[in-house]
């Protein structure tokens, strides 16, 4: 195992920049997830680490070696591809040991590796089949097996679960987490799925338009997003962002007045220079006022008219309006709410975030972990 360091890494196709001066350090044994919308440069970054794309500028280090000019097979990496990339004419067994054989491993090592991997991924009964005779989930496991059979320094995953159905995706996600933990492997994992990012990553890197928006643990990203982009990209339903006026020590929007001094880590003086801010409240942090007992840090939004109720079983999502802007709240099955009903929603002011209206960045160090 090794660490991976990317220093000022840039990638452009002609004049079109794809990745702009990216810095990232993946520690030995760490699982880092790159997440972002399509075209944010996350896959390109991964492929530069793999050696499948050349690096326009900057350095990639694996261990203590700069690998910029090394071909993929000299970087001692293993990779799991989105479409599995299994060799169709080879059996599962041959697919798994193909790279091992080429690397010159002796027959005993190959046999024991194959036994390990097929045992762990439950591939024993499929070893003689061709990829065409396997289901999507089985192919995914073979692709994982092929990567795991190698004693690679770094394991790279390029959206490995995106072709599986929801149930299987969940299952494989758990498997990957288990295997990563067991092998203590250094891994970089690319996904556009925020659930995978949150659940798998020791740290999550949120990317947009070729730059890193934020790097942090999943909980840091969730509770202290550095910008409105991160705040709305991670979390479902997305965070509510409401524009508020700063007036006399209060945040004012759609008839509600929130005392600034009660918001975590924030004082009236901090907001002196602002006339307007964006107030960010995650739908998860709303509570049905009927189910809460009054407390000092709770703020109550009274007379909220419910436009829509979506029942998800345990959870229910409520759609309502702050003035003209639509907002969502997630309550649970204890609340009996129907459309058109007028209710009160409470929110813990420790969980309320403030963002700059122009830069979209988070103000102060609001929000607590």
């Amino acid at each position: 195992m090794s660490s991976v360091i990317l220093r000022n890494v840039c990638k452009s196709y002609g004049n079109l920049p794809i990745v702009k001066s990216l810095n990232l350090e993946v520690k030995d044994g760490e699982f880092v997830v790159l997440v972002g919308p399509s075209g944010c440069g996350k896959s390109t970054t991964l492929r530069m680490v793999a050696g499948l794309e050349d690096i326009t500028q900057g350095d990639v280090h694996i261990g203590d070696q700069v690998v910029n000019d090394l071909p993929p097979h000299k970087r001692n990496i293993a990779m799991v591809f989105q479409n599995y990339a299994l060799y169709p004419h080879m059996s599962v067994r041959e697919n798994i040991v193909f790279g091992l054989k080429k690397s010159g491993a002796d027959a005993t090592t190959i046999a024991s590796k194959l036994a390990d991997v097929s045992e762990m991924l439950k591939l024993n009964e499929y070893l003689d089949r061709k990829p065409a005779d396997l289901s999507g989930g089985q192919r995914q496991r073979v692709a994982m097996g092929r990567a795991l059979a190698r004693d690679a320094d770094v394991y790279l995953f390029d959206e490995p679960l995106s072709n599986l159905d929801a149930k299987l995706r969940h299952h494989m996600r758990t498997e990957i987490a288990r295997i990563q933990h067991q092998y203590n492997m250094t891994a970089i994992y690319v996904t556009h799925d925020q659930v995978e990012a949150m659940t798998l990553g020791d740290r999550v890197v949120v990317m947009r338009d070729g730059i890193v928006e934020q790097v942090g643990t999943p909980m840091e990203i969730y509770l202290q997003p550095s910008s409105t982009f991160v705040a709305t990209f991670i979390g479902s339903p997305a965070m509510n962002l409401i524009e508020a006026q700063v007036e006399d020590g209060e945040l004012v929007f759609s008839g509600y007045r929130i005392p600034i001094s009660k918001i975590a880590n924030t004082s009236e003086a901090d907001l002196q220079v602002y006339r307007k801010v964006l107030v960010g409240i995650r739908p998860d942090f709303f509570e049905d006022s009927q189910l809460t007992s009054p407390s000092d840090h709770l703020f109550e939004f009274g007379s909220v008219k419910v436009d829509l109720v979506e029942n998800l079983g345990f959870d229910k999502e409520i759609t309502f309006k702050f003035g003209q802007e639509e907002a969502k709240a997630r309550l649970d099955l204890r609340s009996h709410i129907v459309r058109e009903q007028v209710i009160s929603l409470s929110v813990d002011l420790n969980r309320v975030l403030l963002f700059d209206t122009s830069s979209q960045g988070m103000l102060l160090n609001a929000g607590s972990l």
Partner: protein
Amino acid sequence: MSSVLIKNEARLGLKLVAPAVGIIGLLVIYPILFNVYLSFFDVQLNGTKIFVGFDNYSELLGNPRYYNSIGISVVYLLGTVTGTTVLGLAAAILMNQEFHFRNLARGLILLPYFAPVISVVFGWQFIFDPVNGIYNHVMVDVLHLSDTRENMIGDPDSALFVVILFDIWKHFPIAYLLLLAKLQSVPKDLYEAAAIDGQNAWGRFWHVTLPELKFVIATVVLLRIIWNLNRFEDVFLLAPNVETLPIFTYYQAFSGVVDQGGAAAISVIQLLVLVGLIWLYVRKVLKW
């Protein structure tokens, strides 16, 4: 479906295939059967037929010219099939790379295949003309590889070589076209996976490209064998002295001592070989 509906549908089906069956029967089945019938007769020029049993076959199997033409056909098939497949594969791999004017080049490569046989045959005859041809000019006057001007097409041995070259040049585009179509559909990530697994360019060709092309290569080889076993016009127009099986059959049937019964016997044997090859194609290659 009720039985009435099924019956009506079957009747409609019969009506729909009837014209095709009629045409095939008239143009393919009837001539084949008539050919088999003829092979048991001595056919006179005035049309009278004398039944001779298997005489045509035994005569044919005792004729050294027949074996000679089989030998020539085998060399012709080996040369042309290997040549077109290898050249087609090379061209397909080249044309699968990114470069400027690739689409233009892809189109130009197809030209020999589309050109009319008779016009390009004249061109090739000029090339190998002993007096004015560029071939002899280059070999003798420019490169000094030979002292004497050779009549490449006049001499049956070297003419076979020219005929093979001509066929490769004229027909490699079809191999190229089929192989390129398949090459373009090989997933890129297979090459990437192979690169990570430690394969260099040759290894990736051997472990990814070739296995992916296996089916198409087999198709190309088999189709080329079937087509070239019957190839007549290219050979006859360019060098009628190269006696491949179809040319030999033609001489038997329509020149010198006309022997239509004997020619029919050759065709019947050739038909059996072809049927075997087509069976192989349908049963094996199409099922890979």
